[in-house]
């Protein structure tokens, strides 16, 4: 029995100008699972992540060869509008980035209006649901119209998560979402990720191996742009197949 594959890459090579950051990665990510990408700094995991929602090409000199398949369709095919793609594949960044001129409510609903204008009642419903799923509703329900900047760092990051899940994407990409947060906030977000996988497919880049071991179903180990190993998390962490994987996991480098 194979799990349904939501996202897959086929010989994906990502470059900045002449520099190759990711070399020919061919991977599959099953639906409704959490997939961790680990590796030392500069190994290409963030670049790979950003290629999954076509953010990589927004960087200076960024381009790719190969394919990325969302439910079987190549997202880099001609005629694909990256905007539309990003409505189905959302991203949360390392530093919380709430929109400074908008309230909490407007931040969460920011992604809803890009696809036509839902009615006010519907927006309110969606916002509340997103905030509940992001475990933020209780803390902000009385100040939905205040500035988003008044929230703490951990709250702001959960706000960004709420903002990302409100438009119901299929995949959520998380780029080191807890590295700017304190341990308590980190734990809350990890719990969140674990719950969210019921409705979303999640790919998370993390430099914290314990985090990868805690939250993910599969793990991919990157090193110098290459995929060294990819498989079930439990297996990777207890019996890694490659020496390099074992060396990184046991902390001998990186």
């Amino acid at each position, binding site marked *: 029995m*194979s799990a349904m594959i939501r996202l897959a890459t086929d010989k994906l090579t990502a470059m900045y100008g002449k520099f190759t950051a990711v070399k020919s990665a061919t991977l599959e990510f099953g639906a409704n699972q959490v997939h961790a990408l680990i590796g030392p700094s500069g190994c290409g995991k963030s670049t790979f992540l950003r290629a999954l929602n076509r953010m990589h090409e927004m960087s200076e000199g960024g381009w790719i060869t190969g394919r990325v398949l969302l439910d079987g369709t190549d997202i880099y095919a001609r005629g694909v509008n990256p905007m539309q793609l990003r*409505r189905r594949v959302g991203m949360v960044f390392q530093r919380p980035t709430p929109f400074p001129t908008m309230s909490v409510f407007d931040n969460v609903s920011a992604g809803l209006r890009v*696809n036509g204008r839902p009615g006010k009642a519907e927006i309110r419903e969606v916002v509340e649901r997103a905030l509940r799923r992001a475990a933020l509703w209780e803390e902000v329900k009385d100040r939905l119209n205040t500035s988003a900047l008044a929230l703490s760092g951990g709250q702001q990051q959960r706000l960004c998560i709420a903002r990302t899940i409100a438009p119901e994407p299929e995949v959520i990409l998380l780029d080191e979402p807890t590295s700017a947060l304190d341990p308590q906030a980190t734990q809350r977000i990890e719990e969140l990720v674990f719950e969210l996988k019921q409705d979303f497919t999640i790919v998370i880049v993390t430099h914290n191996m314990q985090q990868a071991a805690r939250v993910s179903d599969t793990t991919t180990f990157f090193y110098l742009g290459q995929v060294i190993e990819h498989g079930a998390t439990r297996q990777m962490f207890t019996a890694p197949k490659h020496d390099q994987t074992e060396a990184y996991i046991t902390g001998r480098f990186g």
Partner: protein
Amino acid sequence: MSDVATESAPPVALEGRNWGDLAFRGVLTAGALAVPLLMGFLVWELWVGSRMAVEEFGFGFVTDSVWDPVTGQFGAVPLIFGTLVSSFLALLIAVPLSLGVAIFLTEFAPPRIRQPIAFVIELLAAIPSVVYGLWGIFVLIPFLRATIFPFLRGLFGFLPFFQGPIYGPSMLSAAVILAIMVMPYIMSVSREVLLAVPPSQREAALALGATRWEAVISAVVPYARSGIIGAVILGLGRALGETMAVTMVIGNRHEIAASLFAPGYTMAAVIANEFTEAATDIHFSALTLVALVLFVVTVLVNAGARFLIWRVSKGRPAGGRGL
């Protein structure tokens, strides 16, 4: 390999064109294009408008001194003379003052009064030129005529600059008012430049036993030298183009005189005064040529200034002299 997904709502199609973005970029590009187009158009119109005068006078325009609309003779030497003299005199007065203020504010003033004083002096830059002129006519000139000018004539009357009758409207009056007007610019740019000097420069001098004044004058100022020169040249650029205040206090006479108490004329002032009264095509063309010359001169001066200021901000010091 993969099952067909059954979803509650059909996923957003991936295909689609981005007309909004194309239109947006188009609008922005049009706005950006307006800038070179307008500039080019300005140069073109000035060039075309001045051609008659160029053909008629050629190089004589900048070597003849007679400016007579009635007989159709237009020589711009008094204008050029007046522009240069009034501007350089203004700098002579303004630069020491501006530098003194800038150095004081960056090196010696207690921190709390720095911002308010800088703000007050920058308010001077916000006063419209015509208001300076009004004040110049009714307040400054009578004051100068009654006190400073006779004092200068008494003390320095042996020099040709301070001889001759004192009317009031004069080259020196224009220089004083120009000095007040350019001072805020020289001061604020010098201040920025001085603030960019690494503190290590001053500290090194102080560590070697210099007094605070010596540290400033031998370590900080030389480091910022090209930026300060840039600030001065920026002030020059502004002085060259000042129109209203100058035309209201300089006397508007096409004359070259050695005395600073004598009236004079500048390129900007003559355009302001004579343009509405010009009756012949050649007169218009001569004035347009003056505008063109003024334009070219100010562009070159400003470019030179910005280059020098840019050099300091890039971290290339003029070279300290040490103690």
